[in-house]
């Protein structure tokens, strides 16, 4: 039995929307990073799904690349979060609004 492409897409869209909502709603940077991870992986699901559909490896290669990138981003994100936490002792991104207007 093959899973139809629409299923992949529905899953991935669901993940994407979840991720988006998370980014918009969450104030904890860790949860933000998690939500972002969700969005990136939504892309991965779609890529792999299409890769299956076309029977073409480049989609999967793409997904691997994305994983690397996601890892890099998370590393930096965590690093920055730690740095912020060190100077503020607070994990609320809404506090980070010294610049606006």
């Amino acid at each position, binding site marked *: 039995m093959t899973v139809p492409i629409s299923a992949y897409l529905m899953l991935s869209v669901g993940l994407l929307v979840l991720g988006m909502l998370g980014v918009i709603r969450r104030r904890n940077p860790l949860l933000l990073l998690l939500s972002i991870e969700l969005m990136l992986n939504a892309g991965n699901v779609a890529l792999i799904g299409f890769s299956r559909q076309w029977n073409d490896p480049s989609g999967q290669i793409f997904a691997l690349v994305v994983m690397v990138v996601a890892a890099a981003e998370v590393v930096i994100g965590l690093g920055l979060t730690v740095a912020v936490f060190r100077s503020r002792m607070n994990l609320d991104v*809404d506090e980070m609004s010294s610049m606006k207007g």
Partner: protein
Amino acid sequence: MATTLAWIILLLPLLGGITLAAWPGEPPRATVRLIGIGSIAVAFVLALSIFVNMLGNAPTDRTFTSNLYEWISIGGTSLDLSILVDPLSLMMVLIITGVGLLIHVFSAEYMEHDRDYRRFFAEMNLFVFSMLLLVLAGNFFFLIVGWAFVGLASYLLIGFWYERPSAVAAAKKAFVMNVIGDVGLVLGAFLIMRTLGTLDYQQAFAHADELGQNSGTALAVCLLLFVGAAAKSAQIPLHTWLPDAMEGPTPVSALIHAATMVTAGVYLIVRCHAIFQMSELAGQIIAVIGAITLLMAATVALQQVDIKRVLAWSTVSQIGYMIMAAGLGAYSAAMFHLLMHAFFKAGLFLAAGIVIHALHDEQSLDHMGNLRKYLRVAYFGMGMGCLAIAGFPGFDAFFSKDDILASSLAAGPVGVFCWVVGVIGAFITALYMFRLLFRAFWGPDPKGGYSPAPHPSRWWMAAPVAILGVLSLVGGWIQVPFGWSGINDWLAPVLADVRNPIEPSNADEWITIGFSTAAALGGIALAWWLFAADPERRIRLANIARGPRKVMGDAYDFDRAYDDLFVEPGRELGTVLLDDVEPAGPKGLITGTTAVIRDTARVISASENGLVRTYAFGIVAGLALAGVVLAIVVAGAS
């Protein structure tokens, strides 16, 4: 030859004026006199020589034109700086330089005590130049230039004593009124240019037929030109500036506001008779305006106390006669009266000038009396003038006014109306002039007497008055009914193309002589009864007809009406525009747009609230929007 001299005549006063104006430092008074009077004197002599020369030519050979250079070439062809010397313009030149010379001489003494002696002569010379330009111009354009320049000179001289607010206001009024006239003249010129294709006198007149006899165009041209004439010659409804113009020094009033400039309107009509006779209706309108003006002004003159204002209103009235004649087509009669008026009115003004000078700038009749005892020359000049203007048989206006009235009688129904008005006017003229004479020169000294006693003038002032007095007596004999017709003959070459020349019958002449002599004598008699026979009588009668007399005294309230109708609304409108419309409209456009943009900027700034969630939401919402836009476009395209 004649034209070369004419150019020199034209330029002499200008040179004189410029020399005086540009003289470094303060020139000695003798030098001022030499240049100021000398330039006019030479011009007069040259004019006389042209005159003599011209007499030697056959009447048909007395017209000369001369182009100095091509002044402009625009829209296809050109306009020259040209002059036209013919009997009509020469006659005007002689009046301007001749009377002008006398008045300049008079001024030499009259203005002696003024600190701006030099400026006075410079401006007077400028005036003479402008007036010469006006009458010598060979086309409408330079006529308009001269027309405006005399207005400028008049403005300057009315406002000669510029520290006086009243003089300044009077000058401005005169100027603006004259600009209104200029506008009429300019529009008239445009219409001539459009329909006849030329601004040159001779060509325009030669082709005046193309306007169409009694056509609307002809009517429009004539009335537009008449607007100019009315403004310059102080005819209703543009007459209100002239009485105020008496703020200027008396010689100015004599030269500009009596003898020459104000008669330019008459000159214009006579000069353009070829055009004016294309519209009978226009002529009749002009004649009626002249008639109404003469009567109105005469009645106003009755109530004036200021000696110069009496003369000013009398000028308005006398020009009314001329305009009336010109309108009716009695061109040479109009010119005849113009010449005579120049003599006697200049004489009257100068005589009044002696009085004013002697009384240290006192101009009110209430503070005069018995002056014949002190100022004999003035009395002579004033007496001659009064007799002349009243039309006492044998004096100037007896002949010229009769000429006008007789011609009117021969000029159809409108003419008859004009005649009636003219005769009534003659009666009132005699009355108010002799009122002036009797109140100023007869009777007892004024209350409180004179201190110091009026001092008689020296010859600078005396001689011109005497000469003009004599001219008032003998001038009229140049043209005598049933005798000879010097003026008609002289102007014949110019007026040769008049289509229906008015030729009063003997009956017309006799009827007119009878009535006008009666009117003159009646007026003098009444004046004597009122003012001379018993000086107290006028005080006893002071309560008679108060209402009408007040109306006359206020000059029928034209001034106030104009203020209410034109000046104040304009001023108000300007203020409203400046204070309300300007900030709301043109500037409001700016402030409004600025405000909108600034508000938008605030909104945008506020959306940038520093919260990363907002920014994330922005991206997501933007994405949704982008999807929608794209979908709509795609759906729309298919």
